[in-house]
């Protein structure tokens, strides 16, 4: 029994479509946001149930931090110098885990088709996935930063540092989500993403490490500002590029 009744289809579809009115645009926008939100909600809910990804990323990050701790014997001065670097190397490696997983699951189960069948703009899928990846990476960072503080004996919870972490992660996830959607089809899937992503993400790494380092030693604004600008520029450029390119990646 159908609950939704169907009206007879008018012949209007043969006519060329006129551009939507302002309220039409608003409707499209809310539809778009709802689609983005649904993808995000789906990934988040599924992850909360299984906790596979978050636990993997967390454990991996902690292990990397530990390894650095043993590999680099550091006195206080040296520790201050490398702390920012270690933080971001950890974030980058753990990040690839998350990025890979978000598409690997979809591809293996064929559920990417389910997303593509829905009458939503392809870029909404991109943004939904991006926000999901971003959320997971930030959650992991939220745990790692305090651990870092303790191990490196440095105050990590400065608000400006959190801004840098946010901007850097946005840039990294922005490009990473696009590249992961391609890498997942490759035969050497697991290693393909880092190979594609790391060279392109160098500006993020450089800017984030420089900015973080400067913040940790409480350097003046002139040392921090330009790096923040670079991060913002990078984020904007690459999210725009990814937004436009994603269509070409998923459409056959």
């Amino acid at each position, binding site marked *: 029994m159908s609950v939704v009744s169907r009206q007879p289809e008018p012949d209007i579809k043969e006519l060329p479509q006129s551009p939507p009115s302002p309220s039409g645009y608003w409707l499209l926008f809310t539809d778009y946001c709802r689609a983005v939100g649904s993808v995000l909600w789906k990934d988040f809910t599924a992850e909360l149930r299984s906790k596979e990804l978050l636990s993997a990323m967390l454990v991996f990050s902690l292990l990397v931090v530990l390894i650095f701790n043993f590999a680099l014997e550091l006195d206080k001065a040296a520790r201050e110098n490398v702390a920012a670097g270690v933080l971001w190397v950890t974030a980058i490696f753990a990040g690839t885990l998350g990025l890979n997983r978000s598409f690997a699951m979809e591809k293996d189960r064929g559920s990417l088709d389910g997303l593509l069948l829905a009458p939503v703009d392809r870029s909404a899928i991109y943004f939904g996935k991006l926000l999901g990846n971003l959320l997971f990476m930030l959650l992991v960072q939220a745990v790692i930063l305090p651990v870092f503080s303790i191990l490196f004996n440095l105050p990590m919870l400065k608000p400006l540092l959190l801004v840098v972490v946010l901007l850097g992660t946005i840039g990294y996830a922005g490009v990473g989500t696009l590249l992961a959607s391609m890498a997942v*089809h490759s035969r*050497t899937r697991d290693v393909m993403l880092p190979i594609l992503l790391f060279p392109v993400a160098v*500006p993020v790494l450089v800017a984030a490490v420089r900015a973080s380092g400067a913040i940790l030693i409480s350097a003046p604004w002139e040392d921090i500002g330009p790096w923040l600008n670079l991060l913002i520029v990078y984020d904007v450029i690459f999210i725009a590029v990814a937004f436009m390119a994603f269509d070409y990646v998923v459409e056959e």
Partner: protein
Amino acid sequence: MEKHMDKSTRTLQILNVVTAVLMVIATGLVFFYAPRERVMGEVQRIFYFHVPVAWDSMLAFFVTFIASIVYLRSRSRWWDMVGSTSVEIGLVFTVMAIVSGSIWARPAWNTWWTWDPRLTTYTIMALIYVAYLMLRQGIEDPDQRARFAAVYGIVGFISVPITFFSIRWWRTIHPVVIGNGSSSAQGGFDMTSPMRLVFFFSLFSITVLYFCFLANRLRLEKLAERVEQLKAKLLSA
């Protein structure tokens, strides 16, 4: 079809000959016409090879960038071929640039390698294009391969200038080459007018060399594709 092949092969042959002639002349100019540089001596002659090759490697990647965009719009396999062959040639030129640069650097600055912004970015650029080729290798469906490669060709190329700026704000050494009076950076030098002539001729020749390689390589690709088509026809008959 046969006639068309003959005509294009003829053009290609002419191009090959012209390229060879230009290269011979360029080499002659470099060794016999260009003056001996005051500070660095004979080794400076590598510069006439090194810089054009480096610039042309970047030209090659720019060609890939444009070809990628055109491919995504037109979905014509020709542009995919242009993109991928340009990357191959670009990488060869990159290796030649790095090797020739090292050979120049050792006597001139007493080191094989430095991590200055230009070199670092250049290495990263090479890695991006190696990744491009690896991506192509890993995707089986030809249409998907072409699409993905095109997307990465675009993303990769855009990242290079940003990478360059980020690293430059961070460090500094490569010589400021063209006519800058205050070449206070180590190894810089002013170019006199005969040097300028040799340099630009060399640049021209090596650019022609690039296009020659590209054209030959493309012809090879087209022939390979023709073979595949014939194979497929035979198998399905």
